[in-house]
């Protein structure tokens, strides 16, 4: 005689999905027949509850709240995408505004001042001077332009 059927096998037989051997065992085994009877009683109880009793009023069941993690995940992904677009893509495609470097500004200013205070009309081009621009230097340039001396 084959060993007794598991609960799973009994449920399969009950759903008419059991093999011929399982059904044959159930027909000949008193223990399995008893368990099958208990199973049928469970099913009668379940059916009676669903058929005859009112469904308890409940709040939204967890099964219906499954969309919440998905919504949170999607929001996070959207936020990350937004940040990435802002930081990487947007910065890469946006041209840097044309601003002059401080050295260029200083050179132009010194050109302007040299032209303004030029005596012989031939100012020394400031761009040629690579030395850093300082107030003392600028004052010396102005003095030399006024006096006509070489700086």
């Amino acid at each position, binding site marked *: 005689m084959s060993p007794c059927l598991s609960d*799973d096998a009994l*449920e*399969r037989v*009950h*759903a*008419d*999905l059991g093999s011929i051997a399982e059904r044959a065992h159930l027909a000949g085994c008193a223990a399995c027949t008893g368990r099958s009877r208990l*199973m049928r009683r*469970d*099913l009668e*109880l*379940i*059916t*009676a*509850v*669903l*058929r*005859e*009793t*009112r*469904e*308890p*009023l*409940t*709040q*939204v*069941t967890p*099964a*219906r709240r499954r969309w919440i993690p998905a919504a949170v995940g999607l929001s996070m992904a959207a936020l990350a995408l937004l940040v990435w677009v802002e930081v990487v893509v947007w910065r890469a495609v946006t041209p840097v505004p044309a601003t002059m470097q401080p050295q260029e500004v200083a050179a132009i200013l010194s050109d302007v001042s040299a032209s303004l205070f030029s005596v012989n009309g031939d100012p020394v081009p400031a761009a040629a001077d690579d030395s850093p621009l300082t107030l003392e230097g600028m004052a010396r340039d102005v003095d030399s332009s006024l006096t006509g001396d070489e700086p």
Partner: protein
Amino acid sequence: MAAHYGRLRRLCRLLLGDPQEAEDVVQEVFLKAHEAERLARSPMDWGAWLTRVAVNGCRDRRRAGGWMRFRLRSTHIDDLPLVADTPAPSEAAISEETRRRIWAAFRDLPRRQQEVFALRYIEEQPTTDVAQALGLSPGSVKRHLYRAVRHLRRALGDAR
């Protein structure tokens, strides 16, 4: 037709979980039946036809989805249990916890398993009729039934 009213109402209540929505679906089913009769398109088997139309109506309602938000609000006054109401003998015999667990387990089942279980065990229809009503093969009905019963029995086992 009147003989089917209570049966369909119970079936729709079971599938939708909302008495008002169930009532609406049953009304729609009978309107369709009336229309079919008027157009001389009466089915051979009214019972099976009504069941199929009712199940499809419930599916449409569930798909629409929005009704669930108003579920508690839409509970009809007649369906609310009275505070001092004496429980029915069937309710008294079964513990509150057992009932709660069975209902929760049933609601937890996938839609198809709920339909198969309701038609096979609550409506007591043979497997072939269930398969025909739901457009499934008999083998598929048995598999759905097996999974549904296993899930419900586990819930019952936990309640003991």
